């Protein structure tokens, strides 16, 4: 009884909350409808798509595209495995590296703080461009036709470093670090045992952003995975299909009869949507895992703990 009253103590009035619900629900609906649309196409029959195009109300339904994807395309399973492997390894490494670097930038007593801050920030604006980066990756670092080629080029994102530093700044008091140092805690210990747990929402957010970046990545595969296509992640497989279709559309005038013959080889339109579904579902399922930490302190009106 008292707890319930306390819960409402600093909450908005029920009327206001109702308005909030309406706004949030409306926007959420906007966000989910296109995905439902994709689902509907994935289950639409090919005849229906041919006759009336993409539609919320197809003429007939079919699970053919799903069955085809699972039975006939062994690469889908391999690509699934690749995507998961790359995302897990990449997220752990990149979040770790980001946390360490941001922690150093956050320490006001670090002598080269300003230098390292600018060192990472500058790369957000200036880059050498595609070809020089490609050359460094392939010729100097040997990032070609292997898993590291899909992970290493994405490991650092200066944007995340800056955001992470901001999270540290706003949630971790400096006194805490000083106290830990006086207690004889090493820097690594302080970061992983004291700072990171306090800044958990921030770390989880960055981890989520990293996971998304790795999961959505396809361009690295286009550049670095050419002979050994078993390493292709799922998103690259999908983009390859979409790019093929788009290219044939654009080149139809130049390729003539070849474009028609080639277009006939492309997977059906519902199969393309099946791939979209296969890509979205796992990452959407992984989302609540990160969310646990991000939303942990939500509804501050209720008492913590």
């Amino acid at each position: 009884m008292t707890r319930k009253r306390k819960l409402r103590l600093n909450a908005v009035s029920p009327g206001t909350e109702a308005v909030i619900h309406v706004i949030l629900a409306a926007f959420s609906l906007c966000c989910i409808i296109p995905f439902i649309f994709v689902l509907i196409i994935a289950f639409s029959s090919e005849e229906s798509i041919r006759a009336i195009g993409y539609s919320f109300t197809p003429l007939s339904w079919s699970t053919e595209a799903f069955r085809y994807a699972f039975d006939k395309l062994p690469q889908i399973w391999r690509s699934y495995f690749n995507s998961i492997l790359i995302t897990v390894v990449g997220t752990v490494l990149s979040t770790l590296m980001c946390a360490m670097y941001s922690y150093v930038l956050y320490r006001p007593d670090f002598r080269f703080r300003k230098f390292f801050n600018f060192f990472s920030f500058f790369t957000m604006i200036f880059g050498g461009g595609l070809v020089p980066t490609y050359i460094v990756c392939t010729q100097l670092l040997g990032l070609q036709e292997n898993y590291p080629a899909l992970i290493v080029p994405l490991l650092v994102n200066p944007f995340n470093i800056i955001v992470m530093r901001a999270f540290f700044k706003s949630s971790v008091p400096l006194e805490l670090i000083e106290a830990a140092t006086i207690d004889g805690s090493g820097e690594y210990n302080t970061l992983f045992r004291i700072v990171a747990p306090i800044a958990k929402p921030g770390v989880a957010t960055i981890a989520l952003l990293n996971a998304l970046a790795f999961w959505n990545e396809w361009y690295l595969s286009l550049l670095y995975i050419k002979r050994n296509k078993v390493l292709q992640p799922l998103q690259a497989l999908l983009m390859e299909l979409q790019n093929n279709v788009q290219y044939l559309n654009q080149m139809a005038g130049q390729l003539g009869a070849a474009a028609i013959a080639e277009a006939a080889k492309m997977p059906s339109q519902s199969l393309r949507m099946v791939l979209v579904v296969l890509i979205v579902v796992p990452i959407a399922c992984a989302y609540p895992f990160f969310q646990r930490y991000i939303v942990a302190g939500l509804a501050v009106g209720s008492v913590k703990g």
Partner: protein
Amino acid sequence: MEKKQVHSRRLGSSWLERNKKTLVLLSMAAPVAIWLLLLRYLPMGGIVLAFKDYKVNPRNPSFISNLIHSKWVGLKNFAFLFKTNDAWIMFRNTICYNVVFIVLGVIIPVALAIMMNEVTKKYVAKTYQTLMFFPYFLSWVVVSYFLNAFLDAQYGMLPAAQRAAGEAVTSWYTTKGPWPFIIVFANLWKNVGYTTVLYLAAITGIDATLYEAAAIDGATKWEQVRYVTLPHLRTIISILFIMNVGKIFNADFGLFYNVPMQNGALFSVTQVIDTYVYRAFMVTGDISLSSAAGLLQNVLGFICILGANTIVKKIDEDSSLF
């Protein structure tokens, strides 16, 4: 200021010990620093490409030898950007859309994050948040299919409804009027979930006792937002603002290329620097041209970012980026 304090406090310790701490911190920065050095700074030598007519030296076809071997052409590679009077349209579009994205991209996600924070049932808030992230998973190509299901002249739902009502059918992909709104909406729709998470994480980091204290002092909810939440979000808002200003000359290629279905009739409201450069590249196949365009975007962005940083610094020293 703080730096001095810490130093003075540690004055008693030996030089070696202080040096050790710096070394340990350096070791923490090392992985990222090495990465940046190799994958970002080393390739920067390639910026020269923007001023060269890149040709291969068949006697020694390595990139560096090619680069040295290629003719210096000064600013010629930049000329294609300013060739026609239409050039200003793509610069105008790029900048105007970005300004709108920056402004709405702060207001809407912050508002949503605050609202979400006020939802008493946690699982409902979590559901909203999960749903809002969905657009981020869908590529622009898929989004363009979705939009096309509404607007397609032959099969689209809106033209079908117009036909059913006996009205004249709008040819959406050749009518400019609605497109600025469609573009802005599509961009927000796709990115709001992403930014909201950032703000939400920042809000979550705020000490709950601050709100309680404010509530006990009789502050209304609105006042709590005004005096507790927003000041705490100041840093992250400024950071995102400054960083977005730095990208004001860059546009999201997929949004401007795929969503309007590449229709030329809409160019006056959809052509941006990135789509222009892409079309030029597809015809000329010249990497020097894209390098030049990229460099120009970066230099202009850098100038803007310095400006934005200075402004933020004047308002609030702590929130500036450097």
